[in-house]
C-alpha cells in the first residue's frame, strides 16, 4: 500500500478497477437501457446502439381502391409509409425480391402500369390512368433510417397486461410481514442466549449455528405435507399468505438469532448490571435498554430478510402456488421467460420492475447491509 503510491502501477490499478466495474455494471445497464427502448428497435439492434440512428426495413401496405381520388384525369392513392414517425426513407421498392430497388424521390413503374413515387419524408403517391380496383392495396418496401426513440410504453404494457402489477403487490404482501415477524421473535431468543443464565445455553447456540446451513430443500417436502394435512384438518387452503409468512420466519430465524445474539453479547455488561441493581427485571432491561441499543443489528437483519423474501422464488412457488393471482414477481418473471421468451421488451421491463425495490433498499441502506454481513461472517468464523 505504501510502496505502490506514485508509481506507474497506480495507473494499472485504476484501469483494472475501472474494467472490473464496467464488467459488473454493464449487464444491468443493458437491461435498463433496453427496457426503455422502442420495442421494434429493441428487437433488431443491440442496446449499445440505442443512441445511434438505426436502419430498418419496413413493409407498408397502401390503402385499397376505396382511398383513390381523381386528379387531372388520373387516379391517385397517396399517404405516408412512415405513418408520422420522423424517420427518413433512403430507398424503396415494390417487390420483396428487390425491396430497395429505387432511391427515395424516384418514380417506379408498377407491374400494372401505375407510377409509384416515395419521397424521403415517407409520403407516397400511386398514380394510374385506370381506376384502381380491389380492397388490397399495393405493398411498399422501404429502407428507412430511424432516429433513436426512448419510451415508457414497455412499462405501461407490462404493468397492465403482463400481470406484473398484481405480482408486485403480492411480493409486498409476502415480504413485509415476513421481515417484521422474525425480528421480534428472534430478538427475545437472542437476548436469552446472550445474557440469561440457564443450563443448555451452549447447546442451543450450537443448534442455531448448525441450522444456519440446513438446505431449504430438506424442508420443502415435509412442510408441504404438513401444510396439506393441517389445511385439510382445519378446512382451509394449504397455500395461504399466513403459511408463507411463517415459513419465511422459520427459515430466517437461525440467521436472525445468530446475528442478534452476537451483537447483544458484545454490548457492555455494566449497563445491564447497573440496571439490575436498580431493580429492573429481565423484561424491562430487554425492552428499555437492549432493543434500542441493538437497532443497527435489527436493521441489518431486516434488510437481509427483506431482500431474501422479496427475491425468493422457491418458497413462494411451493407454499403460495403458481396460480395467476398468487404469483410473486420472481415467479411471474420465470413464467414470462417461458411464455414470452423472445419478447425482450416485456422481459426487460418486467425484470427491471422486479429488481428496482431491492436496488433502492440496497443503495439507501447499504451501510447496515455491510455491517450485518460482517457481523454474520467474520465473527462467526
Amino acid at each position: 500500500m505504501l510502496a505502490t503510491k506514485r508509481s506507474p502501477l497506480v495507473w494499472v490499478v485504476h484501469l483494472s478497477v475501472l474494467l472490473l466495474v464496467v464488467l459488473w455494471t454493464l449487464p444491468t445497464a443493458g437491461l435498463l437501457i433496453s427496457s426503455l427502448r422502442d420495442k421494434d428497435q429493441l428487437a433488431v439492434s443491440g442496446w449499445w446502439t440505442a443512441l445511434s440512428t438505426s436502419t430498418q426495413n419496413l413493409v407498408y401496405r397502401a390503402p385499397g381502391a376505396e382511398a383513390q381520388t381523381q386528379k387531372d384525369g388520373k387516379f391517385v392513392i397517396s399517404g405516408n409509409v412512415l405513418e408520422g414517425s420522423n424517420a427518413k426513407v433512403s430507398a424503396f421498392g415494390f417487390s420483396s425480391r428487390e425491396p430497395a430497388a429505387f432511391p427515395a424521390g424516384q418514380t417506379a413503374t408498377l407491374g400494372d402500369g401505375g407510377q409509384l413515387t416515395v419521397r424521403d419524408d415517407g409520403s407516397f403517391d400511386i398514380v394510374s390512368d385506370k381506376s384502381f380496383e380491389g380492397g388490397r392495396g399495393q405493398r411498399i418496401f422501404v429502407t428507412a433510417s430511424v432516429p433513436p426513440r426512448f419510451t415508457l410504453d414497455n412499462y405501461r404494457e407490462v404493468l397492465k397486461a403482463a400481470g406484473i402489477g398484481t405480482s408486485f403487490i403480492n411480493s409486498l404482501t409476502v415480504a413485509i410481514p415476513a421481515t417484521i415477524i422474525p425480528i421480534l421473535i428472534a430478538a427475545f431468543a437472542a437476548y436469552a442466549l446472550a445474557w440469561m443464565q440457564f443450563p443448555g445455553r451452549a447447546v442451543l447456540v450450537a443448534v442455531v449455528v448448525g441450522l444456519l446451513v440446513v438446505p431449504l430443500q430438506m424442508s420443502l417436502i415435509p412442510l408441504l405435507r404438513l401444510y396439506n394435512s393441517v389445511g385439510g384438518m382445519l378446512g382451509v387452503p394449504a397455500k395461504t399468505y399466513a403459511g408463507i409468512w411463517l415459513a419465511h420466519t422459520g427459515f430466517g430465524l437461525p440467521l436472525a438469532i445468530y446475528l442478534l445474539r452476537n451483537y447483544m453479547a458484545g454490548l457492555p455488561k455494566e449497563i445491564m448490571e447497573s440496571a439490575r441493581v436498580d431493580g429492573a427485571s429481565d423484561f424491562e432491561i430487554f425492552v428499555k435498554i437492549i432493543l434500542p441499543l441493538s437497532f443497527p443489528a435489527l436493521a441489518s437483519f431486516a434488510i437481509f430478510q427483506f431482500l431474501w423474501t422479496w427475491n425468493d422464488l422457491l418458497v413462494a412457488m411451493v407454499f403460495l402456488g403458481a396460480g395467476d393471482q398468487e404469483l410473486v414477481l420472481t415467479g411471474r418473471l420465470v413464467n414470462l421467460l417461458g411464455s414470452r421468451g423472445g419478447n425482450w421488451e416485456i422481459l426487460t421491463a418486467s425484470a427491471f420492475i422486479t429488481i428496482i425495490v431491492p436496488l433502492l433498499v440496497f443503495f439507501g441502506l447499504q451501510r447496515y447491509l455491510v455491517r450485518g454481513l460482517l457481523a454474520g461472517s467474520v465473527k462467526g468464523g
Partner: protein
Amino acid sequence: MQQLFMAIVTMAAGVLACAAYFFVSNWLLDQIFPSRGRVGAEASRNMRIANQIRPWLFLGPAFTLLAIYLIYPVIESVWLSLHDRTGQTFVGLANFNWMIHDGEFRQSIFNNFLWLLVVPALATFFGLVIAALTDRIWWGNIAKTLIFMPMAISFVGASVIWKFIYDYRAEGRDQIGLLNAIVTAFGGAPQAWITLPFWNNFFLMVILIWIQTGFAMVILSAALRGIPEETIEAAVIDGANGWQIFFKIMIPQIWGTIAVVWTTITILVLKVFDIVLAMTNGQWQSQVLANLMFDWMFRGGGDFGRGAAIAVVIMVLVVPIMIWNIRNATREMKG
C-alpha cells in the same frame, strides 16, 4: 391495494400478538412467583424459580418455529427418503439405488461438483482482488458499491439480465445479445450459448459469480483493513515488494476469513436452483441437484420419496461445513 391493506393489518396483528405473548407470559410469571413485596427466603426462592423459567419463555416461540420448520423436516426428509412416492410404503434404500443408476442424477452430481469447484474459487478470487485494488484508490468506495450491487438482485432477475447477454440470433442477422455481438465483431460465428452441453454450465456459473463477488469483496476488504499496519510496515522496511507483501504478509493473516467466505458460497452453490430453473430448467445437460429435487417433487403428481432422497444428498454434502461451523462457534463462545 386491498390485499396490501389486509397484509398490513395482519402484520400489525401478528406483531401485537407476539408482543402480547412476551408481555403477558412475563407478567403471569411474576404473578405466580412474586418476588417484589415478599421478604426473606420466599422472595429469593420465587426469584430463583422465575429466573429459571424466564429464559424458556423468551426462547419458546423461536425454538418452536425452528423445530417445526427446520428440525422436524430434516428428520422427516430422511424418513421419507426411505419410502415410496406417496410416503406410505417403506422401500429401504431403493430410492438411493435408483439414484445411483439414474443418468439425470449423475449428470446433476457432476454439474454440482463443477459448480463447487468453480464458483466459490472465482468469486473469492475476484472478491479478494477487487478488495485489494479498491483499497488503494480514492474512488474505491464507489467502485465497491457498484460491484456489490448485484447482491441485491434476485437470481431470477439476474438470469433475465444474463439471458439477454447470451441471446442468440441466426448468423447474418444483427445480434442483440452482447456476447454474440462481440464474437461476431471478431469474426466468429454466433452461438446459442446456453444450449451447448457442458459449456453451458459455465455460462450459468458466471451469473452466480457475478452476484457473489460483491459479498466476498465486502468481507475480505474488512479483513484486509483489519491487518495490523505494523506487520506491513515491517515488511516494507525489510524491502518486500507489493506482490510479496500481498501474498506473504496479508493473505496468511486473513486465511480464516477466506475460509468463511469460501464455505458460505459453497453452501449457496449447493442450493442453487433459481438460476438453473430460469435459464435452462435442466435442459441441455445443465441439471443440478436442487432443481432436480424440485422437479421430482412435482413431476407426475410428485414423487416424495425420490425428492426427499435428493434433498438428503444435498444435506449430506452440507454436513461437513455444518460441523466445522459449530466447532468454531463453540470454541469462540468458550474463548
